[in-house]
């Protein structure tokens, strides 16, 4: 087995026993990145020298003993997290040269745990998109088929994970941006409860929806990483003031007696491909075999979720992105004759078309005379969606659904049809609107050999149930063990 194929659980065992050093591990991954990333294009910035320095430091820690499970483990971080001294672009021209003066809380926590920052991963510009084609720099390719998208917006993170270019990748999820690319790339990802992980230092897209989480080889690794990055942060007022549990504790408890909710409306959603439906049905059957009970639940307003999301998220984004005005940092259009012209040219040239589109939508939705009809109405419907989930969770412990209606689509296939792209978020958006934890993991492969994912959602702060169920599933299946042909074909590391 290659070092880059290790799970964190495996790697940290080897590291702790000093069978490998962190430096070896980092070198192996850097070599793999050098060999493979020109094809996948998952990284915007690779921090080779810094990573080797950090690895040497981690090796000293490991030699002393008592280091945590992430010590010496190389991770990739979506380029939306501020990293002190390492440029943080959000894959946008407007921040192409921006070097933060501080670390995001997630980054600080990872460093504190001894994890090695290997690099910053590509994304849809400002996390707006579902294919990573909206990157202001270059599109990332799906490691399973380089002509296809990896999903998005954390497409760089998911592709890097799938291609063996890191041992864990951190992403953010505003409407599915961890789960959908994880699904398209055949890896496991979790969007925790809103407020579970600090948003401090994450460049904001839609503040009431954004949440950070890990993308890993399997659920166990996700539990390990989430344990390290979650917890209350006094720098984020929306952070939940509760201690971060050790999610790795009850992973082996199985699903016997678990009540698995099957939302009927979700499975009737138009556009759900038969292949995905079949794979998810297979997952449900397996859960039943493992001892879970299934119950039919209703999420009657699922059909409104996409509309609500595409008002609230752009509205918040239109305000969050106002700070990129050319005054203080980032790109400023040269030679403007007036302040107004400087604003106009800077923002017109600095932002890509999808970001501009969403700023326009959001600005419109908040405008005088439209606020009540759009933003306020959307907020009210959001409250109803929350109530739908509360009702559903009275009769079940977890809700199962597809992640995306189809496997990964081809690059360029949907770029001219933003609405089709938006509608594909139907399964992932509700968890963001309700602030609930949701996990995506592979549950099968299409006839074309593309991974397909299943999603589990749980009650507020009940990530444990997701991990327990996912671990039981992965113990009984091998979907998560498959590697893209890319990994098999190329001789590297």
């Amino acid at each position, binding site marked *: 087995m290659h070092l880059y194929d290790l799970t964190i659980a495996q790697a940290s065992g080897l590291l702790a026993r000093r069978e490998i050093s962190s430096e070896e591990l980092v070198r192996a991954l850097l070599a793999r990145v050098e060999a493979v990333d020109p094809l996948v294009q998952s990284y915007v910035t690779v921090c080779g020298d810094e990573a080797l320095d950090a690895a040497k430091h981690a090796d000293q820690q490991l030699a002393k003993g008592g280091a945590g499970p992430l010590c010496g483990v190389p991770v990739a971080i979506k380029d939306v*997290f*501020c990293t002190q001294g390492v440029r*943080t672009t*959000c894959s946008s021209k407007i*921040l192409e040269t*921006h070097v*933060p*003066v*501080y670390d*995001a809380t997630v980054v600080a926590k990872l460093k504190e745990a001894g994890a090695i920052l290997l690099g910053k991963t590509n994304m849809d510009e400002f996390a707006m998109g579902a294919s990573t084609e909206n990157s202001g720099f270059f599109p990332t390719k799906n490691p399973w088929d380089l002509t296809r998208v990896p999903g998005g917006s954390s497409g760089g993170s998911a592709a890097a994970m799938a291609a063996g270019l890191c041992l864990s990748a951190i992403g953010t999820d505003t409407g599915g941006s961890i789960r959908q690319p994880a699904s398209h790339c055949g890896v496991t990802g979790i969007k925790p409860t809103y407020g579970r992980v600090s*948003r*401090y*230092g*994450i*460049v*904001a897209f*839609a*503040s*009431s929806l954004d949440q950070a989480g890990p993308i890993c080889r399997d659920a166990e690794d996700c539990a390990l990483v989430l344990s390290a990055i979650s917890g209350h942060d*006094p*720098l*984020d*007022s*929306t952070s939940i003031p509760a201690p971060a549990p050790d999610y790795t504790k009850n992973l082996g408890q199985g699903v016997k007696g678990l009540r698995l909710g099957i939302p009927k409306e979700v499975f009737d959603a138009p556009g759900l491909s038969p292949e995905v439906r079949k794979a998810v049905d297979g997952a449900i059957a397996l859960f039943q075999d493992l001892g879970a009970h299934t119950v039919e639940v209703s999420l009657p307003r699922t059909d409104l979720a996409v509309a609500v999301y595409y008002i609230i998220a752009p*509205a*918040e984004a*239109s*305000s969050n*992105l*106002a*700070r990129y*005005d050319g*005054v*203080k*940092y980032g790109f400023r259009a040269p030679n403007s004759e007036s*302040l107004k012209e400087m*604003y106009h040219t800077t923002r017109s040239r600095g932002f890509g078309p999808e970001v501009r589109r969403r700023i326009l939508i959001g*600005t419109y939705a*908040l*405008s*005088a005379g439209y*606020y009540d009809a759009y*933003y306020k109405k959307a907020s009210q419907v959001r409250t109803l969606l929350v109530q739908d989930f509360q009702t559903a969770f009275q009769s079940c412990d977890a809700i199962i659904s597809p992640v995306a209606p189809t496997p990964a689509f081809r690059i360029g296939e949907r770029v001219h049809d933003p609405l089709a792209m938006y509608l594909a978020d139907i399964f992932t958006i509700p968890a963001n609107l309700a602030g609930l934890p949701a996990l995506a993991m592979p549950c099968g492969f299409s006839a074309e050999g593309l991974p397909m994912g299943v999603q589990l959602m749980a009650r507020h702060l009940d990530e444990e149930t997701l991990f327990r169920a996912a671990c039981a599933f992965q113990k009984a299946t091998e979907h998560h063990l498959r590697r893209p042909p890319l990994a098999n074909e190329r001789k590297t590391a």
Partner: protein
Amino acid sequence: MRYEAVIGLEVHAQLKTASKIFCGCSASFGAPPNTHTCPVCLGMPGSLPVLNEKAVLYAVRMALATNCRVNLESRFARKNYFYPDLPKGYQISQYEAPVAEHGWLDIEANGAAKRVGITRIHMEEDAGKLVHDPHRPVSRVDLNRAGTPLIEIVSEPDMRAPEEAGAYLRGIHAILRYLDICDGNMEEGGFRCDANVSVRPLGQKEFGVRAEVKNMNSFKNVERAIAHEIRRQVELIEDGGTVIQETRLWDADLGKTFSMRGKEEARDYRYFPDPDLLPLVLDPAWVEEIRAGLPELPQAKRARYVAELGLSQEDAGVLTADHALARYFEEALSVYNKPRPVCNQITGALLALLNAKNLSVDASPVPPERLAALVGLVEDGTVSGNTAKTVLEKMAATGRPPREIVEAEGLVQVSDEALIEQAVDEVLAAGPDEVAAYKGGKTKLMGFFVGETMRKTKGKANPKVVNGLLKKKLEA
């Protein structure tokens, strides 16, 4: 036709917290540009606001002191607009759910008492400031002030005359100072006021179209600007014109308001609840604790000075208008407990001295206990009231205590009748014609005799004794 003005005021008061409203940076004034900044108040990508509890405490104190209803749940909202001094492209303020509403302040103006309604008080962050290079087409941005905490106090359109606006503003200012939550400095911008002014034919119910007047940096200028704006609007209407809704800037040198046309397009601030901040929920017990801890406020203090200390309404008003002056008075009183003479010494000689030197009470060169000692010397007859003025000036100039000055300079008042009688006799002997005239009915000449006697004693004779002796001798 006769017109009536309708005036409402918006006051922005900078709260005296040590740190800014949403980050830990110092909120103090006067540091080198951009040194009191951090990722949060610079609007760096990824930074988030955390509310300063002290700012909430101060806002609630003001709310309670102005009889407002404190909203136990309020919300912060984003006010979106682009300007280089606004680092995030929005200002965090309160909009639909402010921290307090429905208060009032009693004022007195033009000889009448009046209650002015307070619509709302809300919290917000200040913007930075632009420094324009006078020599080159360059503007610099200083974000030290960005994120300093403000409260905005919005009045009802209840005022009808510039003097009422002045009285309201002084009242609000005094309360802020009493609560010790704002330094109240209008010139540095710690206390700012915008006035909404409209006029309507007397008797008409509907409001006229209002203009918002800005840029007034003293109480006097607020009154002048409003008076000018009322005149301008009345003249405009009488000439057949119509008032348009706009923002106008007061130019104190020219004594006129000017339209801000061009800069002020119709703005849509696209307010919406700030998703980075949870609703602000206040514990009712905490609010009551704040209420119980409020200090004595200007109006209560004034009433007490009249009722318990026997001061006149006017004197009590002067002493209580300024928190520092009231404190000075009370400190002096704690040393020498005779309210009226202490009051007179403060409102008379001390204020004249401070005004002449353009000093605030806090910077008085004569501390209250020394002033009290001086009043004591007057009251026990050691120095005359007239001499006291001289002594006070010397105290201010030298920093020496009053008794030392009086003794060193031989200013002790002479009350010894024998000594004074000698001088009186000499004065009377030197002016037989005046004496005759006095006795013939020209009693106004008494002043002449007193003056002559004082001159002879170099001002040290006790005027009471002089008067008594003169009367006795002239009317014998």
